[in-house]
Structure formats: structure tokens, C-alpha cells
């Protein structure tokens, strides 16, 4: 295939250690012009770290990097024609789109930047990618999807050789994702080599030519995707074969615990649903469907109009403290932003939401007796692995943080439990444990709502799945009728149609 051609990038035994702990070890691969390499692996496998070494943000501890056959001691990103779309957006919110696009290579002199040229270049780039965004708008005024497009436009503007995309699709809607893929194909056509980091296997198989699989920082496999079936690749990443994980679910009671009627806000419209005690209701949908907004509105964090009933008693308008009193709990999807008190101890994190469940206070608001024992018991229950409950929660791994967060809420003996992406960033072992917890909880008669972008997870643990699309409930499936293909197409299909309508 590449006979005679020279690899644009070749990496030999690349390793990185942070204060003695090896995070990436012996990564070796070659990349030819126009090739797309998928970098796959579980959370924390070392994908982003590898990317950071390749674009010059981190210096490798060991190993060599060759660009077009020449060893580069120090990567300067842009100068070597390498650029990256980072996992976290790296745009400047208060600058305009045009300024963001051109900031790494400004036309004109240092004392006289040519803004005309800047705007022309930006317009040209966006036109080339076939997107319509106001180049004079501040980036902060754009939606998340558009920001991602700008990010990609920025990266591909300077990447004449190599473009690295670190989970670029996580905040994209389906049409936006299609847009991204067509951009990638176009760049491929032009001979740009790409490294594509993604957790979605269908994206990987759709886009990439070859792969490098990492597990715990070590390269465990590389090759052409056409030679490796999907199951095999997954097993390679995880280190074992992935079996069936569906649970045998008990039968929920008839009693409706929570019902909402025609709930509306600016991100969803006239949503109605009901969940019974002991039932696990899954809400499926694509990124940006409005699921988080919906459940946050139910929990009273955001304003919404419409009716909410708990045990047939109206409780809207909702507020967090009211919902807490009614036995509703909500575990956020954004652990870092809305969940963890990262500087505080495991103890304080555990008891943050319901002190009265952990502490015996003779006078309300005074004293913390019994907290320590209660939290220790909970940590054991939840299987949290921590050096001590006084350790800062920052020191815990993502999965353990998630367990602390879950424990914080489950300890309050809720009647209704809303879990938003409960296994986001959690490794497979912990994931299974959390699933077990959810099922066990429902068995005790708790009504559970699980919002997840991981369809398999919903299929595994739900009694019922509702599908949400751009702010509307568009479908409902009972467990016996679960059909992954139908659910996905329902969640996504008409968005396709819409985008086609909009495009035409």
C-alpha cells in the first residue's frame, strides 16, 4: 500500500512517566500521508498523554519521534505541521471566531496585524469546511457544537501534515458529527494524516485505517482494522472478553412514585413521564438531546414550567431542598464541575448532601458526632478504595470518585433516584458494581431514572427505556421489546432528516 512512500510520522518506543509512575509505555507506530490511525483504550489508558507528547505539550521520558524520517528532539507543533484538537476545548471564549482561527499564524507584522487578511483566511477556511459561522461572533456566544467545529477548523488550518483529534465527537449532535467526518475525509483526500482518539467503536471502524490499542499505558496491539474484528479489538482493550451483562430484573410495583406532566423549558418541550416505585426507567438519546436539562429541571436546579407530582402530590415548581425533602436525589453527569468538592476529604464529600443521615445532632446544626463511623460504613458498602476517609477526594480514581458521589446520595435513603450518566469515566469493573447497586436499589422499592449515552448500559439495567430527541420524548420501549437498532434510529434518524432539510 505504501510501498516507496515515506511515513510522515513514526514513533518509536514512546514512554511517559509522571513522578515515577509510568502512564504511557513503548508506543510504536508509523503513519503515512492520508492515513487515519485510531488510538483506542479505556479511560486513563494514556491516549491523551500520547497525544500531548506528539503535539509538544509534554516531553517524552523515553523514545523517539520522527517526522518525515527526521528525528525531532523537540516538537514545536505548528512548525512541524502537527496540530491537535484537544479533549477539553482550547479556544479563547472572548475572542472572535476569526481571531481564534488565526491566532497561531497571524498575517501581517507583529506591530500591524492584517485584520482584513485574518477575516479572509477565516472565511476561506470555514467555506472550505462547508460550515456557516459568523466569523465576527465571540466564540463564547456559540453553542457547544459550533465551538467544536471552530476548534477543528482551527486545528486543520495549520495541520498540513498531521492532525490529532482527541475525542472530537463527544459534544457533537449527529449532523455535526457527520459534518466532522466529511471534513476528515476531505483532509484525508488532501494527504493529511490523522490520529483519531475515540471511545465509539463504530466511529473508529467507519473512519480509521489502522489502530493502536493501549491498556494501562502499554501498547497491547496495532494493525489494520480490516484485519481485526470489533469484538477482538474490544477484548484487546479491556484485557478480557466482554460477556453478556444483562440483569434479571424483578417486577416493579404498580404505585407511581414520580410523574411529570407537560414539563417545558428552553431546552425541552412538553415532556411527560411517570416512573413507578421499584422501576428503573432509562432515558436514551444523543448528546444534546436535552436529557440532562430535563432531569435537572425535575430536581429543581433549573427553572421549568409544567407539573411534577410525587406520590400524586403536586410539588412543582421544584427546588432542590424541596425535592430532597421529598426523597428525590440526583447524581450529576459532570462530576468535576457539579459533583466533587475536590479539595475536601472523602468524609466531607460523602456527607455533603445529607448530613442528617450521617450525624446525630442534639441541637440542629451543631456537632458532627457519628459522622466518621457512618461514612466509614458507607465507604465499605460502596466498595470505595481510599487510603482513609480523611484523604482528599482528589486522590481517588475516577471510578472511586463516582462511587463516593453515588454513596453520598444513596445514603439518604431516597424514594426516587435520578442518575445522569452514572458510569461516565468509570472502568468496566466499577461499572458492573454500580449496575448491581442500581438494580439492588430498585429492588428495595426505589424508583430509578437512569440517563445514559451508553445504550448497552440502558439495555442491561432498565425496565423501560424512553427516547428523547431535541427536547421531545419520541418513543418508549418495554424491556421485552428492547431493540437497540430501533432505539438508535429513533434517537437519531429524524435529526438526519432535519439536517438534510436544513442543508437543502
Amino acid at each position: 500500500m505504501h510501498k516507496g512512500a515515506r511515513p510522515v510520522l513514526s514513533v518509536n518506543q514512546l514512554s511517559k512517566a509522571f513522578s515515577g509512575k509510568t502512564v504511557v509505555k513503548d508506543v510504536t507506530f508509523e503513519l503515512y500521508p492520508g492515513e487515519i490511525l485510531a488510538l483506542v483504550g479505556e479511560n486513563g489508558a494514556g491516549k491523551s498523554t500520547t497525544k500531548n507528547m506528539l503535539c509538544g505539550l509534554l516531553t517524552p521520558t523515553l523514545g523517539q519521534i520522527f517526522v518525515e524520517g527526521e528525528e525531532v528532539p523537540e516538537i514545536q507543533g505548528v512548525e512541524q505541521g502537527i496540530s491537535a484538537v484537544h479533549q477539553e476545548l482550547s479556544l479563547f471564549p472572548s475572542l472572535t471566531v476569526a481571531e481564534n482561527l488565526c491566532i497561531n499564524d497571524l498575517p501581517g507584522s507583529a506591530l500591524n496585524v492584517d485584520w482584513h487578511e485574518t477575516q479572509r483566511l477565516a472565511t476561506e477556511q470555514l467555506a472550505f469546511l462547508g460550515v456557516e459561522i459568523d466569523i465576527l461572533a465571540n466564540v463564547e456566544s456559540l453553542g457547544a457544537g459550533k465551538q467544536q467545529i471552530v476548534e477543528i477548523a482551527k486545528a486543520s488550518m495549520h495541520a498540513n501534515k498531521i492532525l490529532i483529534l482527541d475525542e472530537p465527537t463527544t459534544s457533537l449532535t449527529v449532523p455535526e458529527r457527520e459534518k466532522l467526518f466529511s471534513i476528515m475525509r476531505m483532509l484525508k483526500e488532501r494527504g493529511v494524516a490523522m490520529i483519531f482518539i475515540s471511545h465509539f467503536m463504530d466511529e473508529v471502524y467507519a473512519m480509521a485505517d489502522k489502530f493502536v490499542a493501549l491498556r494501562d499505558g502499554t501498547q497491547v496491539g496495532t494493525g489494520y482494522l480490516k484485519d481485526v474484528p470489533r469484538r477482538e479489538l474490544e477484548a484487546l482493550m479491556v484485557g478480557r472478553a466482554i460477556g453478556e451483562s444483562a440483569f434479571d430484573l424483578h417486577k416493579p410495583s404498580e404505585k407511581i412514585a414520580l410523574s411529570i406532566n407537560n414539563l417545558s423549558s428552553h431546552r425541552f418541550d412538553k415532556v411527560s413521564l411517570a416512573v413507578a416505585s421499584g422501576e428503573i426507567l432509562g432515558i436514551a438519546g444523543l448528546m444534546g438531546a436535552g436529557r440532562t436539562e430535563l432531569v435537572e429541571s425535575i430536581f429543581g436546579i433549573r427553572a421549568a414550567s409544567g407539573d411534577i407530582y410525587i406520590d400524586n402530590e403536586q410539588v412543582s415548581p421544584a427546588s432542590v431542598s424541596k425535592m430532597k425533602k421529598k426523597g428525590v436525589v440526583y447524581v450529576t453527569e459532570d462530576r468535576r464541575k457539579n459533583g466533587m468538592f475536590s479539595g475536601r476529604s472523602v468524609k466531607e464529600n460523602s456527607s455533603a448532601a445529607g448530613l442528617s443521615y450521617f450525624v446525630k445532632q442534639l441541637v440542629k446544626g451543631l456537632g458532627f458526632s457519628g459522622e466518621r463511623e457512618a461514612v466509614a460504613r458507607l465507604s465499605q458498602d460502596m466498595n470505595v478504595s481510599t487510603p482513609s476517609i480523611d484523604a482528599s477526594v482528589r486522590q481517588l480514581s475516577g471510578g472511586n470518585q463516582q462511587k463516593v458521589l453515588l454513596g453520598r446520595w444513596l445514603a439518604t435513603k431516597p424514594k426516587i433516584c435520578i442518575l445522569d450518566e452514572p458510569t461516565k469515566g468509570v472502568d468496566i469493573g466499577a461499572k458492573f458494581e454500580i449496575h448491581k447497586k442500581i438494580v439492588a436499589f430498585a429492588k428495595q422499592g426505589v424508583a430509578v431514572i437512569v440517563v445514559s449515552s451508553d445504550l448497552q448500559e440502558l439495555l442491561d439495567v432498565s425496565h423501560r427505556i424512553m427516547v428523547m430527541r431535541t427536547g421531545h420524548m419520541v418513543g418508549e420501549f418495554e424491556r421485552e421489546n428492547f431493540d437497540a437498532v430501533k432505539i438508535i434510529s429513533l434517537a437519531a434518524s429524524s435529526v438526519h432528516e432535519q439536517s438534510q432539510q436544513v442543508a437543502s
Partner: protein
Amino acid sequence: MGMSSIVKLLKSYPSLPIIAALLVLFSSLSPYFFTAGNAESILLANSVVLIAAVGMTLVFLTGGIDLSIATVISATAVVGGVVMAQTDSVFWGTSAALLAGLLFGLLNGICVGFFGLNPFITTMGTALVARGIAFTLSEGIAVKGTPEVLLDFGFELLWGIPYIMIVGIFIVVICSLAMSKTTWGRQVMLFGSNREAARYCGINTRLIETSVYVLSGLLAGIAGMVSIANLGNALPGVGDTLLLLIIGGVVLGGTHMNGGEGSIMRTVLGVTILATLTSGLNLLGIPFYDQLIVQGVLIFVGYTLAMKLSRT
């Protein structure tokens, strides 16, 4: 006591090495430093700063700042002084000063906690208002007519400790307990650590944020009265120059400016450092301008060090 408990102690009180160094240094350089008289003098001079620094610590713990605290001391002192001059009653004077402090604190608290305004600018505005009120009410000169009771209170000692410092110690103890033993204190720490997460936990974040500014105003009111007891009369600019010492004390103690990390006991140590430094340098006859240089260097180095030690 092993290595690890020393490390732990340093982590909780990162300014300890500096204090130790200063004590050793000054004791060896000046025969007057380590005397009861000098201790009394240090305690007398720093009660006002200590009380205000406790308020500032609470605000820092939520990730805010209260630039008005110094001028609110002046304003409440003048209000208390004026009322005492009229009524000759310490009770009414104190009530008026506390009420004034409360109102200034409420102004800050509502603007920051409820309207979400930037604390730096808000409290800067309040500082100007307070300063204007202090000087307008007093016409720029000290308000005389302090009742004898208060004068005696400011002059006398109990077991070698000035009464006004006992007020300071009392406040330190109360506020420390409030931080460690009440739900409110826990909520302040959680809020400072991550305000969004606090909201998601159902903590009334607006109330918590408002409460620290109100308390800071209230403590400034107490500090204002203490300054009258200490100086004998209410001086309209009495607190204005203290802002540096207050903030300096808090950060030297190792309370983070971004909230969620720090404690009142740390601040006590931080204030002690600056107090020891001033006293020691005075005894050594170092001119005040050179003292300023030392103070500035120490604040910078101390804060950097404290951040390092408390994080590792």
C-alpha cells in the same frame, strides 16, 4: 512523634516555620523582645487586626474578598463613638456600631451573594461609601466622649492579657467552633471548595455567601468598638491602614484566596507573624520604611511557601 506527624502539622499550619524563625531571631537580637511588657504591647496592638482578619478569613474561605472591612472598622467606630457621645452608654454605642457593621455586611452580601456581583468591585464600592460616612459623621476628626467604662476596659488586663485581646480570643474561639462544629461552617467550606456542587447538594448557596459578608461586617463592627477602647476615641481613619495587615495576616497563615482551604487558626498564626515582625523590628530600631520592605517580602514569600506546604 514521627516524621509524618510533623508533615501533617506543617500541612495544617504552614506558617509555623516562619513564626519559629522570627521568635528565635528577635529573642536573640533584642533583650526586650521576650518580656511580659512586650507581649502585652503586641497583644494590645493587634486585637483589632485579629478580629477583622477572622472576618476576612471567612470571606476568603468562600473564595471572595472583602476590601471594605478596613473602612467599615472606621465607619462603625465613628458611629459607635457618635452614639456614645450622645447617650454616654456603651450598650447603645456597641449596638449602633454592630448594626452599622451588619448593614455594610448586608450590602456586600446581597450584592455578591444574591446579585452575583464581583466581590472585589462591590466591596471596593462599599469601602468608599463607608469611608465617606466615617468622615462625614466625624467631620474628619476624632469623636470624643467615650464613656469611662469603655476606657477602663481598653486599659486593663486580666491575668496579664488585655481585655481587648480577650475579646479577640473569644471571637477566634467562637468562629473556630462555628467552622468546625456547625453545619453552617461545613457548608461554608464546601461552598468555597465548589459552589456549583454545593448548589447541587441542596445547600442554600446564596445564603451561605451572604452570611460570610454579613459576619465580616459584624466583626468589623466589633473591631471598631475595640479600636475605640484601645485608642480612647473614635478615629475616622482608624481602620483604613489596616487592610494590608488584615489580608497579609490571612494569606500568611495559609488560607487560600480561591476558597475551600484554610482556617481561622491559620489566620491567628498569620496575624501573629506580622505582629511579631512589627514589634521586633521596632525594638531593633529599623525605620518604618525598611519595615515595609521586609513586610512585603515576607507576605510574598510566606504565601508562596504556605501554598506549597499546604498542598503537598
